[in-house]
């Protein structure tokens, strides 16, 4: 009997952590960091964190679509690099040719998103044709990462591109609250699509069981294609904002973004098996990482130690997910 009570209590704790763990973690990190360095809680620092992690946030939202659909996208990093490089070329050339800064900025934004969409569309089209799931998406998007990275490399010929402008609308994309606003808008729209549209619901079914989705008469290929298209679009947008924020572009701009995004998605409680997850939680996952890394920085923790902490958090997040799943199964078995 005691063991039954124990397991019930354990179940409660786990489901509580799943429900509130992310917010709880952000609060704890903020509390601890603020006690040691009161400046952590300042409005300026908060904005800094949000802004610094807004591009990872946008990329993670796209990644969440791929993961909920039962796949992943490893080409996100290269896509960001490519859009960054192209965007910078457009803006620099426009500056030289004295195009109105506002139209140049909007053009760069549009091209960036379309470029991302193109990469995503190729990923999605291939995966739709081969009826790919997790394993196939791993290989195909990894190959895409290499190809897209090489294209970016060829375009800038290995050079780092500095901005040849000092102000204008494009600069605004990365300044102040704008990147955060971008992330919020993307998050709201994407959450809405996921919950309120046929496509969103189909995506969950696809991720949960491709076979069941097919046998329910869903447009499996189309949904898979769209999920990757959206993931690519988000990466493209992230690329544009990164360039604007940093003021330069290189082929290494997006390095490791795909892994960071996957980590944020996982910490946000989206099962890497597909079929579950939410955009809101993904953004909270990004913020946990953002708050934690900033806190470690402010507290002067060595960078190697930071990486160890980061790795530990990832393992804990996945362990929690596994624990939750095994409990659910046990509940069913009883």
């Amino acid at each position, binding site marked *: 009997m005691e063991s039954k009570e124990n397991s019930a209590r354990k179940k409660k704790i786990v489901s509580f952590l799943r429900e509130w763990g992310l917010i709880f973690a952000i609060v704890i990190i903020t509390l601890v960091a603020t006690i040691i360095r009161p400046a952590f809680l300042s409005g300026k620092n908060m904005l800094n964190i949000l802004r610094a992690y807004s591009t990872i946030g946008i990329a993670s939202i796209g990644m969440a679509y791929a993961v909920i659909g039962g796949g992943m996208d490893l080409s996100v990093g290269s896509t960001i690099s490519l859009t960054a490089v192209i965007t910078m070329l457009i803006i620099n050339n426009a500056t030289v040719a004295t195009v109105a800064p506002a139209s140049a900025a909007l053009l760069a934004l549009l091209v960036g998103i379309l470029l991302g969409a193109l990469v995503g569309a190729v990923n999605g089209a291939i995966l739709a044709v081969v009826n790919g799931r997790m394993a196939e998406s791993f290989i195909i998007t990894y190959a895409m990462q290499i190809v897209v990275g090489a294209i970016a490399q060829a375009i800038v010929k290995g050079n780092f591109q500095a901005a040849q402008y000092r102000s204008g609308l494009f600069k605004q994309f990365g300044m102040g609250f704008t990147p955060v606003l971008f992330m919020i808008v993307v998050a709201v729209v994407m959450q809405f699509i996921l*919950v*309120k*549209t*046929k496509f*969103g*619901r*189909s995506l*969950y*079914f696809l991720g*949960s*069981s491709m*076979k*069941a989705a*097919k*046998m*329910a*008469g*869903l*447009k*499996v290929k189309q949904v898979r294609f769209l999920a990757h298209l959206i993931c690519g679009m988000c990466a493209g947008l992230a690329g544009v904002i990164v360039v604007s924020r940093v003021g330069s572009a290189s082929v290494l701009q997006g390095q490791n973004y795909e892994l960071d995004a996957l980590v944020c998605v996982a910490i946000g409680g989206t099962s890497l098996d597909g*079929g*579950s997850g939410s955009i809101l939680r993904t953004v909270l996952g990004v913020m946990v990482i953002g708050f934690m890394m900033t806190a470690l920085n402010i507290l002067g923790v060595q960078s190697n130690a930071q990486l160890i902490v980061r790795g530990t958090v990832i393992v804990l997040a996945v362990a929690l997910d596994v624990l939750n799943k095994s409990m659910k199964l046990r509940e*069913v078995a009883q």
Partner: protein
Amino acid sequence: MADYILEMHHITKRFPGVVALHDVSFKVRRGEIHALVGENGAGKSTLMKILNGVYQADEGTIVLNGEETIIRNTTEAKAKGIGLVFQEFNLVNSLSVAENLYINRLPKRKGRIDWKAINREAQEFLDSLGFNFKATQKIEQLSAAQRQLVEIAKVLALNNSLIVMDEPTSSLTTTETEILFKLIENLKKEGISIVYISHKLEEVFRLADTTTILRDGEVIDSAPTATLTRDKIVEKMVGRSVDTEYPHRSCELGEVVLKVDNITRNGLIEDISFELRRGEILGFAGLIGSGRTEVAEAIFGAEVYHEGVIEVGGKKVAIHSTHQAKDEGIGLLTEDRKETGLVLDYNLIWNITITNLNKVRRRKFISSKAEMQLADQFSKELNIKTPSLKQYAINLSGGNQQKVVFAKWLFSDVDILILDEPTRGIDVGAKYEIYQLMNQLAEQGKAIIMISSELPEVIGMSDRLVVLSGGKKVGELNREEATPEAVMSLAVSN
């Protein structure tokens, strides 16, 4: 020496909700070929799984060579000289025939595996059996029939005294079947006993010394094959009364809504044609592997078909995908509700509305309120018993899960429903509800195809029966003609 190599006494095996075997006694003489026949689900496989240690009997004893034994697992069964040839292949496709034959006992020389010796011995062994492929060939290069022969060779290589063969010829062509029969006769001469499970009665008459007939988990008869006739066996296999278990329905048949013309899917189904009318329940009878599910999948667009024409409502349609089939008004309730019929981790609302999300959209977007209302309406109509619609599908009983699958497809408003084993694994009460529901649907003008391996059910429910065997349509029977004997005799004809 005992007369009998194997005696299974009073074996009873219960699974939750069913008695799979009831007081079954089964004896095999030394050096005889003993056929075990019965309908799908009669208990043949369960009995052989008990012999092989996969299951433990709840009651009864096993006597091997005159000694009472307990077989706890397959390893013990092997050690006691019992060999099993399964229908499913347990071969490693990327390895060679020789490697598969010697996989557990690779001969070593000076600490290294002696490949030369293995390949030579394996080749000699294959030659002695009369098999015409090389020991060094990879399994993936072999045909299905050759793979089956490898599976047989694997068991023969172990020097067993008793070999069980479960439908060994189901994937063999005539030539290979002949090779196998000669082999079996040779084994018999060497004094090895064989339990031969088959649906093909000609094989039983050709090979078996003794035949045991199982039905509903009980032994109906066990007699020298010479004293039996084909009709007698069929009668005993199916001989239960088919009557009032099935609710009566009287309704007028309407126009033809589905016409299938010479559908062929290479290697699986061949030239299948039939018509389906509004208000009709058309039964698909046949043994497992006869191609019934394959026909359903082809019509539903889940698998390709290579030739043939499908007409829906008098119009020729080319169906390439499941959503296209749904748009044409065709729905398929799959035989595996846990894997493909439902997503068990999702709640009932999601599971019901997924086939037609347009119906729950308000101003272009999904409305949870509309979803809740409609799902509630359907679950009440179908009498689904659940504390809440937010319950996960996995927490429902089999019968209620099956009703959710029905709700899901009724929700899609399709006119043609293909039901693949709609009552599999659900209890008697729920079964009766499903039958009533099918009748209601037919009366409302839906057209239904019912695939079922339960002969009484498919005969009792259908207006007309299509019988498949070996991927071909072997007969069409109306209600009066469809006796269990007639259906079974067609089902084993190809």
